[in-house]
């Protein structure tokens, strides 16, 4: 036990007190801040052309109050026909002239409005002009059809489902809890994915290095192979956790700084790519208080420990496989990649299933994958926030824990033989034989 602790300590300190680790850990949040500020800045730039547009409106259908004044495009309303407004383009008073006519048929839907200009109009500009005109025509129609504006506004409806349990009075589920669950689940799933993949690779590289520098034989004359392997896995895992903690502390800080710098929250778009962003938009409309309330209602005393258990077992499962691969290949990077491919595929598949599970946490796919050890570490945590049946959580955890133990033993066997085996090509067949060495 004492030796295991020494190994863990070495694996941890040689990494954490390295300049590159400190730099990377601090630079990533800074990089994200810089990146978001730049992206935010680019996105916030108004890309509409700065032009003046005259509206030739001889029949005075345009309602001046419906034209937005803060727009980049300035409108000048005139009752003159186009012919007499031409000179204004020449003198540079405005760059374009729109010719509007009230529709003869109030039921007409499609209009073709002529715009006279020598400028090239980009997509944003023409869309802005079209929107402006559309508002005018809609307003004209409402007025001339003698519709009541208030009545029209009441036509829009929003529906939310209010679920009431019939027999099973376990927990109230609202729209908010779905959204909160999605966000939480998404974060848990992605965290798992990044961690397992990143730290797993680190374990593999470290084992390869140990084998190639031939230090391993010296170490193995002092400790058992399983101790060395476990010490490495735990040490590297602790490094990852340290980094994660630093980031968890830094990220909100980064968010606050960017928000202050740009005056708006630019962090939301950076989460896109996952269907979490949809949920966030939805969450926005639900109000912060509701979300906070929902978060408060979550059974954190259950979720957090269970999540951590999944995290630990999932990491051990994949990291021991990575260690086994590292011990089998030695210095051949391409061979390592080849052997790693099935594992990477499993992890990526797990992530995709997890993302599907966010949308449908009670689906067959989600439930069955929770009982497959390679998917469970990603899928089950995403479902946790949706309050799945307890037996499913516990069964999933039990299956994962048992397979974690089993695969760690398997990996240790491969590791023990592989780490001292030089100059043999590590095919799956070859590795299979190692399992039966004494």
């Amino acid at each position, binding site marked *: 036990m004492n030796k295991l602790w*020494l190994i863990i300590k070495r694996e941890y300190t040689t990494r954490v007190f390295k300049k590159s680790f400190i730099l990377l850990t601090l630079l990533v949040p800074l990089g994200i801040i810089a990146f978001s500020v730049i992206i935010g800045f680019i996105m916030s730039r108004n890309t509409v052309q700065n032009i003046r547009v005259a509206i030739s409106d001889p029949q005075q259908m345009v309602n001046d109050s419906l034209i937005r004044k803060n727009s980049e495009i300035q409108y000048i309303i005139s009752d003159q026909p186009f012919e007499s407004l031409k000179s204004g383009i020449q003198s540079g008073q405005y760059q374009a002239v729109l010719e509007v006519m009230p529709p003869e048929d109030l039921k007409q839907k499609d209009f073709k409005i002529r715009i006279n200009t020598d400028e090239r109009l980009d997509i944003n500009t023409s869309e802005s002009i079209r929107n402006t005109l559309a508002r005018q025509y809609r307003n004209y129609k409402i007025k001339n059809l003698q519709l009541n504006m208030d009545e029209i506004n009441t036509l829009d409806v929003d529906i939310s489902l209010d679920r009431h349990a019939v027999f099973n009075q376990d927990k109230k589920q609202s729209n908010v809890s779905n959204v909160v669950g999605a966000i939480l689940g998404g974060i848990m799933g992605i965290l798992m994915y990044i961690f397992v993949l990143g730290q797993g690779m680190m374990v593999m590289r470290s084992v390869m290095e140990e084998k190639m520098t031939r*230090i391993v034989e*010296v170490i193995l004359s002092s400790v058992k192979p399983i101790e060395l392997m476990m010490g490495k896995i735990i040490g590297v895992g602790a490094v990852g956790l340290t980094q994660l903690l630093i980031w968890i502390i830094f990220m909100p800080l980064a968010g606050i700084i960017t928000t202050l710098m740009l005056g708006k929250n630019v962090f939301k778009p950076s989460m896109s790519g996952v269907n979490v962003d949809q949920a966030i938009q939805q969450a926005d409309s639900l109000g912060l208080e509701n979300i906070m309330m929902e978060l408060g209602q979550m059974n954190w005393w259950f979720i957090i420990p269970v999540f951590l258990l999944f995290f630990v077992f999932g990491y051990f499962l994949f990291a021991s496989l990575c260690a086994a691969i590292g011990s089998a290949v030695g210095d051949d990077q391409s061979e390592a990649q080849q052997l790693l491919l099935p594992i990477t595929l499993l992890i990526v598949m797990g992530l995709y299933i997890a993302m599907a599970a966010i949308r449908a946490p009670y689906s067959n796919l989600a439930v069955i994958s929770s009982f497959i050890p390679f998917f469970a570490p990603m899928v089950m945590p995403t479902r946790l926030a949706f309050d799945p049946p307890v037996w499913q959580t516990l069964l999933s955890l039990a299956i994962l824990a048992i397979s974690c133990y089993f695969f760690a033993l398997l990996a240790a066997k491969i590791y023990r033989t592989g780490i*001292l085996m030089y100059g043999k090509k590590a095919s799956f067949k070859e590795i299979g034989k190692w399992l039966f060495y004494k």
Partner: protein
Amino acid sequence: MSILTLQQVSKTFQNYKAVDQISLTVPRGCIYGLLGPNGAGKTTTIRMITGITHPDSGDIFLGGNRVNKTIPSSIGYMPEERGLYKKMSVWDHLLYLARLKGLSVQKAKEELKFWIERLDMKSWYTKKVEELSKGMSQKAQFIASVIHKPDLLILDEPFSGLDPINTNLIKDEISRLRDMGTTILFSTHRMEQVEEICERMVLINKGKNVLEGDVEEIRKSHRQHLFELVSENDLPGRFPDEFHEIQRLGKKVRFNPEPHIQSADLLRYFLNEGIEVNAFREQFPSINDIFIETVEKSNQA
């Protein structure tokens, strides 16, 4: 009393027998040579003794205790293929290895200071391993194998890559440790080193023990009745036929006489003939010759 005993130890990798029923006994306090051609099973044997791998069958006793599946802490081991973590400083590294051997921090530091002084490493023990020359890292590795004062020290090709000065330094340390009671198991295929250092030896080939015993005894038992005479005088053109002169180089003559002729008979003849004898000795075969002869014989068997 023996410190290490192997009884019919075997290890098979797939269908290849790396070690085949090896038995040997290493007496306490001697320097014991483990010889054999490449691939004979030396490293596998050592790995089983150190507990890195386990024998398929047979028993290993260390100081009277069966150690088949444990890692004995009373062994120091310097493997042939050796390395260190590149990014660690020599000091940190040796401290780590000493701690893995079960030394307390304080004890480890004490020992480390002693060895750094002794092996003249003061100017570079703070350096990182990757900055060291081959000889330097070899010294560091030597320290790693002896820092915990093992009863049995296993050295696999300890002098490869060392310059003559450092070779002598390590040789002296080995003798010193032996005098202090450490048993040294010394694996090599440099035969002149065996003659120079080892008291006992075992020769293994194809995983089998083909020759074991006291080095001098082995040499004696392999003598081929060869004699060498050095004389400042003019040597006679011919010696008696039964002397079987086989080589003449200047003032040096070698004989391989009939079996019934002993060294005394030769000497008597020289004196009677008035040949000045500057040097005369029976030639023992070198371990190198015995090695080659034995290995070839066992390969044919």
